[in-house]
């Protein structure tokens, strides 16, 4: 007792006790001021990290309020492929993203589509889309706006037109696509056995909402990454290109050759697009009400469209926003000798002075051989991107 007393009353003990008390108080108070105490988390989706391939951009276009999760992506994949996204159950009125965005065609519908003649899709009511399709490749890096004219963009003053989540709502509402309404869609999906549970796993609530439908689909679309073409493997030093492909590479990358790289990327930009908008010299009269000019109102943007990625070109015919070219050869003939001057032609189309890049037939063949090195077959066969073997209620 005496011993104990002496310890307790010693200055050393008081000091230790003070420190202890001090630290506990700090701990309690700082934790209370840095974060509000939350009840134990009821659910936790598994975070999903995109593995950025070598040479690819580091900045990903993922909105802060829709982090990628394994469960979100899995749900998004079901919805992407589920025709009941139309909100209508009848066999004639099913439509989902995959109705038009078909994996075998790098997520365009394809020029030989049985219903969409010539590769021009139409919605459930038969109204054609205002443009032909864009492939869904590497969209997580799109930084200047989605769609041919960049309408859906981070800098759009309307918050409902900023990212892939917003494209989903457009698809449900547009007369040229589902021509439905989002309440009908969410009611429909909510009734299907299995979905509420998947929504719970992804978002912590089994109530099916328009927002969470959009979030899940957008998450899935962001996983559609192509980085395994022959050219990618060449850049990684794994394989060599053929002589013809190498000649084409030089033509693609040089100003005095074909000069494609200023708009379509290349060794410094493996997306094979800058994602910027140009008038590439197809016409002198512009009648499309949905070109880039319709967004910016700047006369320099008349007849301008997003330069699409050239990845998987071989699967994405027909070409250009209006599908005017059916083959890669037709596209090359156009760049070679078919350019048309207009006041808004891009200043990067400097070959307009001679009507085109004027390649010899063998150079043209080389350039085409090089374009075909952007083919990534693993992308169109990747099981993670394909239709799930069974829908949630099957």
């Amino acid at each position, binding site marked *: 007792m005496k011993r104990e007393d002496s310890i*307790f*009353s010693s200055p050393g*003990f*008081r000091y230790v*006790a*003070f420190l202890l*008390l*001090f630290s506990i*108080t*700090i701990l309690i*108070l*700082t934790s209370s*001021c*840095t974060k509000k105490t939350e009840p134990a988390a009821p659910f936790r989706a598994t975070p999903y990290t995109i593995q950025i391939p070598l*040479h*690819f*951009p*580091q*900045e990903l276009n993922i909105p802060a309020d829709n982090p990628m999760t394994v469960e979100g992506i899995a749900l998004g994949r079901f919805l992407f492929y589920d025709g009941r996204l139309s909100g209508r159950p009848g066999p004639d009125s099913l439509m989902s993203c995959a109705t038009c965005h078909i994996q075998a065609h790098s997520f365009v519908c394809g020029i030989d589509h049985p219903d969409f003649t010539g590769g021009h899709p139409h919605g459930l009511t038969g109204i054609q889309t205002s443009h032909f399709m864009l492939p869904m490749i590497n969209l997580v890096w799109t*930084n200047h706006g989605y769609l041919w004219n960049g309408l859906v963009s981070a800098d759009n003053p309307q918050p409902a037109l900023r990212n892939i989540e917003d494209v989903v709502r457009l698809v449900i509402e547009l007369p040229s696509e589902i021509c439905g309404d989002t309440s009908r869609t969410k009611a429909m999906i909510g009734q299907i056995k299995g979905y509420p549970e998947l929504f719970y796993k992804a978002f912590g609530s089994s109530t099916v909402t328009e927002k969470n439908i959009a979030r899940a689909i957008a998450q899935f679309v962001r996983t559609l990454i192509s980085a395994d073409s022959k050219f990618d493997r060449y850049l990684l030093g794994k394989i060599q290109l053929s002589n013809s492909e190498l000649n084409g*590479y*030089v033509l693609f*990358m*040089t*100003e*005095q050759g074909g*000069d494609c*790289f*200023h708009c379509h990327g*290349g*060794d*410094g*930009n493996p997306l094979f697009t*800058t*994602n*910027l908008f140009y008038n590439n010299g197809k016409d002198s009269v512009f009648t499309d009400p949905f070109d880039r000019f319709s967004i910016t109102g*700047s*006369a*320099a943007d008349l007849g301008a469209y997003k330069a699409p990625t050239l990845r998987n070109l071989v699967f994405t015919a027909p070409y250009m926003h209006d599908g005017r070219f059916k083959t890669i050869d037709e596209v090359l003939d156009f760049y070679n000798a078919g350019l048309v*001057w207009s*006041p808004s*032609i*891009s*200043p*990067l*189309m*400097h070959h*307009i*002075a001679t009507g085109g890049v004027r390649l010899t037939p063998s150079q043209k063949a080389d350039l085409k051989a090089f374009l075909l090195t952007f083919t990534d077959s693993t992308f169109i066969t990747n099981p993670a991107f394909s239709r799930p073997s069974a829908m949630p209620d099957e």
Partner: protein
Amino acid sequence: MSHIFASGKTFILPILLLVFISCVKDHSLEITPYTQGSIIISYSHKVKGETLKFDTLRYSTSTGNRYQVSDLQYFTSRISLHSLKGKWHDIKMDDGIHYTDARDSYSCSWWVKDLLPPESFDSVAFIFGLDALQNTTGRFPDPPERDMFWPDILGGGYHSMKMNLKWQNDTMPQSMPFMFHLGTGQVYASGIVNPDSIIGYVPNSFRISLPIGLDLTAGGYHQVILEMNVDRWFDGQNAFEFARYPSGMMQNQEAMFRAIRNGKKVFTVKITN
């Protein structure tokens, strides 16, 4: 035991106070004392003294070509200030590299976070384009810098400048594009412009040094305005004729050389102390 807590009580108030202060501090602004100076480097673009206007064929060169500017994007690097005490102070932020897109006002103003010594400076120097040592392929994986990449087969790295123009003279029925692009030049063995015959590369970035009167002795923030006089690219000691280079500049070292000679005189500087 009770006496421990009793004695502890006397500590509680100061502890609470301390903790409260540390909490508040987290959410308030840190104020750095003004013992050192800081600068904002601004980039402005003029044609014959007038602020550059894009997409309008309103300018003309001394040789009678009318022209318009559609895009103007460039790098400045290794930016440094020379103090009266005889020392160069390199800007360290962002490795001393800045990308400017004249259409994007955000990129035209670079708030340099380096703290500079409280001295007087008599010149500012920088490299137009990326310094040869920094001009390495893959340095910028992300846009907008990424889109300045210079093809590997032509020397790799990045364009120093992309100025996209349209021009017209009296004999031409309509304006024609001209890509006034600077970057690594090539030396071709045969004189024939074929990448297979490249025997050497010319960096083509160049240093510019301009006199200033920048006084940071009292600390505080100051603006260094670098003004590009676009017309001087064409009207310097080597008049630049667009018609002379129908197939562009990227593979023509003579054109690039001519542009650079003019380029050394395109910048002027202003200081707001």
